[in-house]
């Protein structure tokens, strides 16, 4: 089942590759955009539900019940469920679209990695997924200054003997901007654990993504960049970007 899904993804990717004049970099970009378009309704629903949950945090009834049943978790849960029902909010509404999207994103990632087959065993494995298009092998992995099948650390540009991980930096920056733009302003105080968690993830995740981009095939890094930009665009379309988040925050009084 999963293999059939991956085969489908690989064949679509190769079809795009053939369509754009055998440029694998362009194929990755278009394929990522295509998958994002297909999953757009799910993403929009996730954003909408996420907004509803955020609005709920500012609801007076919600805040009151948090104080009132601070020491009675069971009663608090009952009251919360009642309020969810009353306001028509699904607490799992933002999780479900993410769960549905997850296999698609992993499939997209695997399709890219498998199509970049660089060793005999990888190519033999790829041959089992390709229904047509043997004439496209070997794929043209060169895009701009990159060999998409190699990690940037193996071919990165160097100035005066120092390697400049350009792609990893682009991934790091777009990941940071994406995280910042999408992070809702914290409504809690200094002790808000969720806000602190979000802040920490917003700091570590871009560094982590940059490290992955530096260490893994640059085709994957290209996917990260396009994916980040597509996510920013999706949020912009739904009006959910908070550009002020990019500016330094003033200390709250």
């Amino acid at each position, binding site marked *: 089942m999963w293999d059939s899904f991956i085969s489908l993804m690989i064949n679509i990717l190769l079809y795009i590759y053939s369509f754009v004049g055998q440029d694998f970099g362009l194929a990755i970009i278009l394929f990522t955009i295509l998958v994002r378009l297909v999953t757009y309704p799910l993403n929009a629903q996730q954003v909408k539900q996420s907004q509803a949950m955020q609005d709920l945090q500012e609801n007076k009834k919600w805040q009151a019940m948090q104080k009132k049943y601070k020491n009675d978790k069971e009663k608090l849960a009952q009251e919360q469920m009642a309020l969810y029902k009353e306001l028509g909010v699904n607490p799992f509404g933002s999780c479900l679209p993410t769960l549905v999207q997850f296999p698609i994103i*992993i499939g997209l*990632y*695997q399709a890219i*990695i*498998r199509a*970049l*087959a*660089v*060793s*005999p*065993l*990888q190519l*033999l494995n790829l*041959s*089992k997924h390709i229904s047509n298009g*043997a*004439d496209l*092998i*070997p794929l043209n992995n060169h895009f701009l200054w990159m060999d998409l*099948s190699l*990690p940037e650390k193996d071919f990165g540009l160097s100035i005066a003997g120092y390697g400049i991980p350009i792609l990893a930096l682009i991934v790091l920056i777009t990941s940071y901007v994406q995280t910042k733009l999408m992070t809702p302003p914290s409504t809690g105080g200094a002790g808000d*654990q969720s806000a*602190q*968690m979000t802040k*920490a*993830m917003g700091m*570590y*995740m871009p560094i*982590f993504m940059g490290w*992955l981009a530096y260490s*893994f*095939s640059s085709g*994957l890094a290209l996917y990260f960049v396009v994916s980040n930009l597509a996510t920013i665009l999706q949020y912009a379309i739904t009006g959910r970007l908070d550009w002020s988040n990019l500016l330094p925050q003033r200390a709250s009084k």
Partner: protein
Amino acid sequence: MKTKRFSLIIFTLLFITIALSACASGSRVMASGWAGITTDDETAYLAYNTHVYAIDLANGNLRWRYPSEPDPKITFYAPPALTEDGQLIIGGYDNILYSLNPLNGQVNWTFEGAEGRYVGGPLVTEHGIFVPSTDYRVYALGFNGQPLRDPFPTEAEIWATPGSDSECECVYVASMDHRVYAINAKTGSLSWVTNDLGGALVGTPALSEDRQLYISTFAEEMVALNADNGAELWRFTAQDWVWGGPALGDDTIYFGDLSGAFFALDRQSGVQKWQTQTGSAIVDSPLVTEEAIYLTAENGLLVSVTPEGVNRWQKEFEGNTYSGPVAAGDLILVSTSQPEALLVAFDSNGVQKWTFSDAGE
């Protein structure tokens, strides 16, 4: 609370790392290719994963291995080749070509001029050593490891061991750019090159005595060429990609494809004589002897058939068998992906003689 938060972040990052690395390419632990084997009168030389092994043909005992301890930066999949002056030439995945002493595994010299890995084996001729690289070039080296001239360029990676032709002193290079190049072994100049044959070429071209050159393609075809000018003589369509090069019998060529189909064709006309099905991908060339044909299939099969296509016997292994069988005197050698049975020797009747294991070495 801080500890809890930190743990959650670490868990998330670890999860992403594992999810990505589980299916990412370039793992150094997993094998990237399959074994290459060559033999002399007394020893089999097996290149697989982190070592080149010298194995005593009499009993399957290890004589030496290089390097003595595994170095994850060095892996070998290209078949080694022996020179007449007593060198074992082997290309590594670390872009280095090694000359080893076949008696003890000591390094004679290395060549580090290539920018790509070695997947195809070197071809040894009286004019020098011709080494295909994944940097799209064929390097011509003297027997001291020094380049004889500038490398010969193609337009894609070269995974096939080149074929040789002593009559015209040619080297035939099958490239993944879908073309066969005939290079003058003395001068390095191009004698002829084919048009795009329709698919990548990774099998070693086979040359017949009447100067026909047979080449397998990923376009599911076996193509016969005139070895003097590269003109196409005939094409035969198989059922899937044809990865391994063909082997020649008297008037027959034998090869398998990735669907598991194994074919015998008339050499002159390309007309099919018979076909049999193994049920699993045939990745390398078969072995043709006077009495039988031997072939391996990916799912761990060694099959022996008569020249008429009648099954003689078959053996099953637990690991995968990608490399084709190799003859060594009266023995048929087969390499598997299992560390407990890296090389297994049979006689022509299918009786197992010994097994070489690297488990726990």
